[in-house]
């Protein structure tokens, strides 16, 4: 008799994650802004003649409205057309880097926490080492050595430094979870280590991993922008960071070409804001104590 309500509660809570998310206003507003920006950029990007992306396609230094939506650069490119390429590319960096960081981090955290012993000792040291070194320094070093990398390679480099934090937190969670009754039961019923990790432990971490993914996404877009502004970005592809790099390279601020640097800066702010709202939404759903009315 006592088991049934507990099971019902679990089922309801599992069913409720998506339901809760789509009911969370912050999550939906953030997600809507993000998707709208991405879709507009992707669709208009597909409709534009690729030749119009090349330097010299437009008159130089036109303010917004005079023939082009957001004005043109000193290299004779349309800022609006650059945005249609920069937004998807920056989002791509965020997606790949966050996916690599989160998956790698979760895997290492689960293995380290669940198996313990020597495996845990080695992985723990590895996590601590990576956590203690300043990752931006390494990113600058690697990017400087591999000048001229593409968007995907850039994302992988950033992702390679995004795993230690989730790894440590997953490990801590697993250390506590594996002592719970349901894990003991699973072990007694003959499930092996990987099965327990995937079937029993993973579902408990989904919401946390989702929030971490969004967080890593923001961090990766920021890292890419920083590296690009330093001149270490994907030099043949346009990202929001590379747009700022070129604007600085032609001293757009001093020359009062405000539309050139303001467009990527505002876009980055909108991107961060939308992802931050999504992140808060995730947090509130996975941690009901944070939930506010409305």
């Amino acid at each position, binding site marked *: 008799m006592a088991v049934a309500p507990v099971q019902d509660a679990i089922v309801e809570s599992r069913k409720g994650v998506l339901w809760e998310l789509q009911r969370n206003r912050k999550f939906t507003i953030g997600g809507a802004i993000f998707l709208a920006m991405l879709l507009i950029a992707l669709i208009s990007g597909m409709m534009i003649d690729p030749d119009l992306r*090349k*330097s010299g396609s437009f008159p130089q230094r036109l303010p917004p409205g005079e023939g082009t939506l957001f004005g043109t650069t000193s*290299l004779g490119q349309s800022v609006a057309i650059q945005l249609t390429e920069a937004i998807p590319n920056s989002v791509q960096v965020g997606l790949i880097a966050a996916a690599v960081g989160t998956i790698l981090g979760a895997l290492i955290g689960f293995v380290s926490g669940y198996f313990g012993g020597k495996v845990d000792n080695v992985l723990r040291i590895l996590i601590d080492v990576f956590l203690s070194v300043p990752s931006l320094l390494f990113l600058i070093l690697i990017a*400087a050595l591999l*000048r*001229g990398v593409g968007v995907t390679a850039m994302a992988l480099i950033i992702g390679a430094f995004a795993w230690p934090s989730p790894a440590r937190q997953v490990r801590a969670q697993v250390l506590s979870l594996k002592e719970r009754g349901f894990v003991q039961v699973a072990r007694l019923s003959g499930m092996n280590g990987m099965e327990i990790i995937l079937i029993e432990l993973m579902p408990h971490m989904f919401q946390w991993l989702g929030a971490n993914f969004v967080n890593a996404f923001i961090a990766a877009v920021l890292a890419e922008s920083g590296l690009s502004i330093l001149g270490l970005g994907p*030099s*043949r592809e346009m990202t929001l960071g590379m747009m700022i790099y070129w604007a600085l390279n032609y001293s757009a*601020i*001093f020359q009062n070409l405000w539309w050139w640097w303001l467009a990527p800066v505002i876009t980055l702010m909108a991107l961060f804001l939308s992802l931050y709202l999504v992140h808060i939404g995730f947090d509130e759903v996975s941690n009901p104590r944070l939930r506010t009315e409305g």
Partner: protein
Amino acid sequence: MSRSRSTLVISLLLLVAMLITSACTAAVPAGPSAADMERAQTLNIAVSRPFADPTLFNIYAPGFDRSRTGLGAMVHEYLFYLNMETGEFVPWLAESYEYNDDYTEITVNLRDGVMWSDGEAFTADDIVFTYEMLRNNPALTWANESNKAVANVEKIDDLTAKFILTEPNPRQHLVRETFPAVGVWSGITIVPEHIWRDVEDPVTFKFDPPIGTGPYLLESATESAFSYTRRDDWWGTEVFGVTPAPAKVNFMHVGPETSVALSLSANEIDSPAIGILSPGAFMSVKERNPNIKAWTEEAPYAWYDPCPRALLFQMGKPPMDDPLVRKGISSLIDRDQIVALAYEGATVVSDNVWPEYSGLQPYKDAIADVIAASAVTYNPEAAEQYFTEAGYAKDADGFWAKDGERLAPLLMTNGDTPEAMKVTAVIVDQLETGGVAVEFQPLGGAVVDAAILAGEYDLYGPQAFCPGTIYENMELFHGKFFVPLGEPAPWYERNSFRYANPEYDAAVDAMLVALGENADEATLIDIYRQAMEVWYNDLPVTPLNQAPALVPFNYTYWDGWPSAENPWMMPVNWWATMNLLLTGYESVETGEWVPGIRAAGQ
């Protein structure tokens, strides 16, 4: 009630205090502050980066920055300076030089009365010692080049030195890496024997304080500034009867381009070094501060540095070993567009690798028909013909391909310089538009040096071709500098592109012989033409544009700067020749003193 009354009293007291203060202020006559006075006597040069090691003053130490520290111009002096604007070879520490009959020796007569800043006399011993030091320490900057060319220096007497050369060379006095004269940028620097003879390791020696013969002493050096003060006891004041106008000279880092532009607008800077200001930023500065003027009043504003830019083809391997492919690529490059977009109009296109100096014009005129028939102008139809003739055809995506393989050359550039990034951004787009699937790779730091010298590129640019004189730039393409791929070439433009054509080499050798025989210009031009016929047919590199040096001067505190209207000297604050901008010099042609800059209003 009481509160409002006390407020009224306080307000009245404040008002009285203000009136008294303003009355006092008005009583003091307005005049320049001490800071203003000091600024008016100081020359401030903005440099591009901070100083990595402000304790190192040894100009021979590998990695020492001659351009930004100003040490070579303020503290050191050279035997001769070449004024490229007037063509004069100005005697300075020396009075004259002469070659022997077979050009294996140069005898130099030193000027009497030259003193080191510590009071010792400058003599032939210092020259003999400097060359001995270079011979014993090949790690010193330019020691290798110098040792290859100069076998020995003998002292005839205190004021006469004889250079014994390893092989005949009538141009030896113009080679900066082997002779103590400055043409472009710098030269072999003579060091005081009485200090350096006791130095154990000249490579690691700091040379603190630096002792030279120049009109300034180093006062202080930090990460952000090298500051110099004028000497009252400079030998030139007695010998020439002149004193440079600025009491202080600072080479300072004020920040990136925007900071330099703002400092220039606010009269905190008198001139920026090369490569800092873009034309757009310069125009904004000019609008804010009418006292800022560049070399020309109208576009392109820049002075042309003697090192034009070109794109290198790696001829040591396919696909650029095929002259048709090189010509195809060259025909796809729209140089006018590079000038408009990358340089914002601050330069002009170039169809050769020599600067736009009037003295070189007869040479260029003589090959006008050779250039017209060559592949150094934008011509997409000609490019199609070249590629087709080379066996290429366009694939489904519109890219040139041969045997199923796309023409995808690797274009390297120096990602550390904004100029290179801007120029290559345009070139990559132009080549892609023309159907060349170019791969782009910017490199930086020491990596780019190693890769370029080893020849790991298909295309590299923009590359400066220095020093810009007819013979010296012809010689850069000589087969004697050829090394196989993988081994380091002597320098970027010194055949890192692996060019070797005996027919061309023969013309260069003939030019050297003709120069030694003091042949007339018609003969020299004839040989030049022969060489260029081979060169344009082979096209080892493709010329892009003249090198702009947008270095405006601030006329607020200092006047008499050189300009296109009054081109008495090159506007080069990053060369050792800069001291002549301050002191002026005795004209070789008229014998009169051409004055240096002076305080504004004088």
